[in-house]
C-alpha cells in the first residue's frame, strides 16, 4: 500500500512539475495560424486616437494569423463608460465569442461581467488597464507601472531644472486603474528619492479623458496655483487639451505641459515649446501583442502560467511573469518608453503616419522591438 501511495505521489508531483518544466525549458510557443476565433477588442472609450491605433495593431495580427473569425471593435461613449463596458461584455457572452480583450474603465466594477464571461469559457485578457486578477487570465502591460512614475519624475525634473517648482497632475477619470497606478508610482518616486526633492506636487485633477473637461481643468489649475510651472498629464487626451489651453492663453513660456502623449497630436505643441517633453509607447504594438497573446490562450496553445514563453510574430519572444504591482496577477510586459522632444518628434510623428499606411514595417520599428524584448527579459 505504501509503495502504491508513493508511486501515486510521485506521479502527481511529476504531473504538476513536468508541464511547467517543459514550458520553461522548451522553445517558445508559436501560434498556429488559421484557427477560427471570434474576438472582441474592447477599449475604454470611442473616439480616442490611441485605441484606434491599438485596433490597427490587432487587425494586423488578425490578418497575419489568418483567423477566419471576426475581430469586433466596440467601446462605450465616455459618458457611459462603465455601464457601457458591462453591456458590451454581456453582449459578447450572449454572442458566444471566444475571447475578449479589455482596456478596463474600472478595476472592480467590471468583475461580475468578466467573471461570468470566464465561466462561459471565454478567454478574458486585459491590456492598457487591468481588472482585478480574479476577472482576467492575464494583463498585457504596456510598460512597467513603476517605470512610468520614474519617467514622469525624470521629465518633470528635466523641464523644471534643479531649482524645481510647483507642478500639478491632470489625469483621466478618478477610477482609471492605470492612471492611478502611475500617479501613485510618481508620488512614491518623489517621496523616496532626494533627487526630486525640489519638485512639489500641488494637486491632482481629473479631466475624464474628455477634451473640454480637461481643457477647463487645466485652466482651473492656472487660476488656483499662481506659481504653477508644469502640468503633468498621464493621458493622451489630457496632455493635448492642457497644451492647447496653455497655447490659447499664451502661457507656454511660463507653464510647461508634459506626460503621456501621441507624437502626431503633440508635434505642433512640442515645436512651439508648450510641451517640451513627453513620453509614450506604441499602441499599435500593444494591440498587436494583445491579439497574439489572446489568440494563443484562446486556441489552447498556451496556458496563462508564470514562466511560459511564447513568440508574438514580428515583436519577438515574451514571457508571462508575475505582476510585481498587483498580487496574484500575471502579466506580459511590452515596454519600453520612448521620450519625445523637439529633436526627435519630427521623425516620430512622421513614422506614425507612415506606419498607418504601411502597416508598421519600418526598420526603426524593428530595432525598437528588439530593445523591448531585451528589457522585458531583463525585468
Amino acid at each position, binding site marked *: 500500500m505504501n509503495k502504491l501511495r508513493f508511486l501515486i505521489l510521485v506521479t502527481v508531483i511529476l504531473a504538476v512539475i513536468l508541464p511547467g518544466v517543459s514550458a520553461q525549458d522548451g522553445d517558445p510557443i508559436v501560434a498556429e495560424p488559421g484557427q477560427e476565433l471570434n474576438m*472582441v477588442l474592447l477599449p475604454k472609450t*470611442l*473616439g480616442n486616437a490611441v485605441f484606434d491605433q491599438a485596433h490597427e495593431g490587432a487587425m494586423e495580427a488578425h490578418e497575419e494569423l489568418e483567423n477566419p473569425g471576426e475581430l*469586433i471593435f*466596440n*467601446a*462605450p*461613449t465616455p*459618458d*457611459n463608460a*462603465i*455601464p*457601457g463596458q*458591462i*453591456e*458590451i461584455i*454581456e*453582449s459578447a457572452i*450572449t*454572442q*458566444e465569442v471566444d475571447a475578449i480583450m479589455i482596456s478596463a474603465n*474600472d*478595476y*472592480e*466594477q467590471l*468583475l*461580475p461581467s468578466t467573471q461570468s464571461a470566464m465561466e462561459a469559457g471565454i478567454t478574458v485578457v486585459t491590456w492598457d488597464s487591468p481588472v482585478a486578477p480574479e476577472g482576467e487570465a492575464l494583463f498585457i502591460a504596456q510598460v512597467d507601472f513603476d517605470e512610468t512614475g520614474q519617467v514622469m519624475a525624470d521629465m518633470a525634473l528635466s523641464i523644471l531644472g534643479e531649482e524645481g517648482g510647483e507642478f500639478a497632475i491632470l489625469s483621466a*477619470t*478618478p*477610477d482609471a486603474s492605470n492612471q*492611478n497606478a502611475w500617479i501613485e508610482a510618481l508620488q512614491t518616486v518623489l517621496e523616496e528619492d532626494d533627487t526630486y526633492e525640489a519638485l512639489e506636487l500641488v494637486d491632482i485633477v481629473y479631466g475624464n479623458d474628455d477634451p473640454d473637461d480637461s481643457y477647463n481643468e487645466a485652466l482651473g489649475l492656472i487660476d488656483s496655483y499662481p506659481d504653477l510651472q508644469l502640468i503633468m498629464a498621464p493621458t493622451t487626451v489630457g496632455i493635448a487639451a492642457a497644451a492647447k489651453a496653455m497655447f490659447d492663453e499664451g502661457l507656454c513660456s511660463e507653464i510647461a505641459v508634459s506626460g503621456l502623449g501621441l507624437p502626431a497630436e503633440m508635434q505642433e505643441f512640442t515645436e512651439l515649446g508648450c510641451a517640451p517633453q513627453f513620453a509614450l509607447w506604441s499602441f499599435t504594438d500593444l494591440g498587436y501583442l494583445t491579439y497574439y497573446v489572446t489568440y494563443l490562450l484562446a486556441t489552447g496553445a498556451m496556458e496563462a502560467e508564470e514562466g511560459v514563453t511564447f513568440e508574438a510574430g514580428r515583436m519577438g519572444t515574451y514571457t508571462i511573469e508575475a505582476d510585481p504591482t498587483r498580487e496574484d496577477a500575471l502579466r506580459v510586459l511590452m515596454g519600453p518608453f520612448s521620450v519625445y522632444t523637439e529633436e526627435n518628434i519630427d521623425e516620430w510623428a512622421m513614422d506614425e503616419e507612415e506606419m498607418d499606411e504601411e502597416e508598421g514595417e519600418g526598420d526603426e520599428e524593428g530595432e525598437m522591438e528588439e530593445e523591448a524584448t531585451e528589457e522585458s527579459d531583463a525585468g
Partner: protein
Amino acid sequence: MKLLERYPWLRRWETLLFVILCAAVFINISLSEHYFNIDNLANIFHLSIEKAFVVLVMALVIINGEIDLSVASVMGLSASVLAYEFEKGASLESAISYAMLAGLACGLANGFFVAYLNIPSLVVTLAGLIAYRGAARILLEDRSVGNFPEWFTSFALDDVYVSIPTLLFVLVGLILIGTLVYQFTNLRQAVEEGAAFRFRKPGPVGLVLITVLAAVLVYMLALSSGAFEATTYVFAVLYLISLGILQFTNFGRYIYVIGNNRAGAEYAGLRVKQVKMTIFVMSALMAAFAGLMYAARVGNIRANAAEGFELDIITIVLLGGVSIFGGTGTMVGVGLSLLVVLNLRNGMSLRNINDNTRASVIGALLILSVLIPNWAQTIQRFLPRTLSGDNLTLDLENKEARESTETA
C-alpha cells in the same frame, strides 16, 4: 379613415409604439440568432434595470407637469451613502437605511422648493443634480468601495428559480391585491361608469390580443425560471403597482388633473402642494432604491455612479407618449416605450453597433415621437370629417379633469 373612426385605439400613440416594438423584435430575431435566447431576454432588463425603476416614477412626475433632473444624482448619492457607511464598518442593513434616508431627504428638499416655494422644478432639480452629486463626491472622494455581502449582490446578479408553488403563491397574491384595489379605489366606479379609466369591452381584435399577450406572459414565466434576476421581478411588480396608482386611483387622477390645469385644480380645492410633494418624494425614494440596485449589480461604488442616467430615463418617458407639458400619457405607453428602447439597444448591441450610433437612433425616435402626432394633426385639419375624432383623447382628458374636479 373609417377604420380609424371605428377603432379609435388605432389612433393612439400606444398602438404605434406596439407596432414599433413588434418591428424591433422582428428585426432583432432576423438579424441575430442570439437574440431570442432566454439569457439574452433576461439581459435586456438586467443591464438597464435601474433606469427602468426610475422611469416608472418619472412618468408620474412629468404627467404632473414637473420634471426631476436630479434622479441620477440621487441614485449616485444613495449608492455613495451606502458605500460610505459600509466602509466605516456599519452593517449593510443600517447602511441601506441611511441610503434610503438620504433619498428621502433629497425628495423632501426637491418637493419643498417646488410645491411650497413655487420654484420651477427644472431649476430646483437641476440644482439637485449638481448638489447631490457633489455630496456623493464629498463622501467618497476618489475611493471605490466594494466587497458588499453576498446576499446583497446576489439580489441583482443571481438568477431566480421559480417553482410552481411560488408561481401559484404569486398568482393568488395578485388576485388578492387586485380585489383590494378594486374594492378600495375608484376602479369599480371607473369600470361601472366608464368614467376615469377609458376601459371598454374589448372587441374581437382586442380579445385575441389579450389572449395572445396572456399566453406569451405565461410562456415567459415558465421559461424564465433560472434566467431572470430578482430585480426584474421586482420591476414587474412595481410596474403593475404604478400602473394601478396612475390609472385606477384618485391620486392618479389628481396627477393628471394637476398636470392638465394646475390653476383649475387649485380652485377646485385639490391639494396640489401635497400631491406634488408626494410625487417628488416618491421619485427620490425610487431613485435611491435604484441606486442601491446599481450598487448590487456592479458590486462596487464610486461617486460617479449612475452619472448621466437622467437623460435616458426622461427619453424613455417622453417616447412613451407623455407630454413634456404634463397632463397626458399612460403607463401602458411608458411600458411599451421602455421595451422599445431596451430591445433596440440590445439588438444593436448584439450586432456590435457602437454607442454613438445607438444614441442617434434613440434620438431620432424621440424626435419622431413629437413630429408624428403633430403631422397627424396637421393632416387631419384638412379632413374635417375626422376632426372631432382626432380630439377624442384631448376631450376625454378634459372631461376627466372636469369630473375629478367635480368629485373633489
